């Protein structure tokens, strides 16, 4: 767990792993119940017929962002001690493209592929196999990848630091973007639904 619990010594590494297991199982269960184990549902996102994944992700981002911001503002959470992953522009762009191709081709992302495999779907199992093959291959060839892996490092970049605005402004802007996104997503889904009901 990267959150401050470990750093303050409130949780040992072992306890952190157990909690991660419980949260992971809960997360997987919720994904399955929401129908996210199905590649058809996830692929719907790319055809703009089912934007559940988009809405779920943005809901999670909004909830976490508002929680972290206000807990930080109230002094409950010390944001300075929450780990911010570093930015490596080129490797992350390439990683994003590889991830996107895998997502579109399999119709599953890492979490949902596990859910899909656990529910006995063959495509899910293959996606998990592919994911672990990729991890294994990266590990084996890491020596020759390392210089690229560490290239174009920009350190811990945050939107407030890049745009020279306060965290509150960024929070507000992301809330607006998310709400607009939800609104558009719902309209797209409704349109797809109407089109689906009216056979061409």
């Amino acid at each position, binding site marked *: 767990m990267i959150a401050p619990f470990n750093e303050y*010594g409130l949780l040992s590494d072992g306890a952190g792993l157990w909690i991660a297991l419980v949260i992971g199982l809960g997360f997987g269960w919720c994904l399955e119940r929401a129908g996210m184990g199905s590649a058809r549902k996830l692929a719907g996102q790319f055809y703009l017929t089912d934007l559940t994944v988009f809405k779920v992700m943005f809901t999670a981002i909004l909830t976490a962002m508002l929680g972290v911001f*206000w807990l930080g503002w109230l002094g409950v959470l010390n944001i300075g*001690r929450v780990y911010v992953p570093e930015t490596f522009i080129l490797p992350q762009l390439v990683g994003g493209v590889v991830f996107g191709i895998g997502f579109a081709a399999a119709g599953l992302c890492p979490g949902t592929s596990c859910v899909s495999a656990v529910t006995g779907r063959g495509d899910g199992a293959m996606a998990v196999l592919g994911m672990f093959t990729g991890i294994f291959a990266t590990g084996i060839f890491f020596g020759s990848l390392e210089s690229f892996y560490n290239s174009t490092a920009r350190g811990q970049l945050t939107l407030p630091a890049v745009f020279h605005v306060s965290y509150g402004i960024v929070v*507000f802007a992301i*809330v607006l973007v*998310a*709400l607009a996104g939800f609104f558009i997503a719902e309209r797209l889904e409704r349109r797809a639904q109407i089109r689906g009901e009216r056979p061409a």
Partner: protein
Amino acid sequence: MTDITRRSVQVLASAALGLGLLAAFAGNPDFASSARVDVRSLARNVEAEEDHVTAVELAEWIKDRRPGLRVVDVRPADEFDAYHVPTAENIPLDKLVDTPFRKDETIVLYSGGGAHAAQGWVFLRALGLPHVYFLRDGLTEWLEDVINPVISAAPTDSARNSFARAADLSRYFGGVPRAGEPATVAPLHELSHKSLAKKDSTTGSTAAAVLRIRGRGC
């Protein structure tokens, strides 16, 4: 979408919008900038001299590899690069409060003199870290008492004892104890220590660093 679902979506969306709008006016969250300090307890620590360690104590802790010890140099990076206490990490004062420390770690801060480290001590104690200490006279004390300890011409018994202890540490850290101390060869197990591997080179740079730091008069 049922009516209840639609209504809860609307309520949640309005809540998010409201919290987002308020956030725009709230500015920045609290970055550890308003930690609480129990000033009475800090004052008691200072009064009981529990706030600092001597350079010799620190040297013994490093030599004994005290578990969970972190030696922190709060000076700017260029001064750190020129010379620093072995095993120390460089965390300038403005980065100190954002650096993750564990409550079970023993943190020893030092600066060139003593003021910055003492200020850092207050910051870290205010953040609730219990085992924080500083070197009262900073790097100067380290150089004078550990690296180049000096004994007076007519020492008392206790002075002689403490000098023997300091001289031992001095040799361990590649320093040169001065006075009528017979030249001894460090035991082999000490010579194998990492800090002594570069003894010849560090002695020279240490001497130069002492001159530089003394010359600066801090």
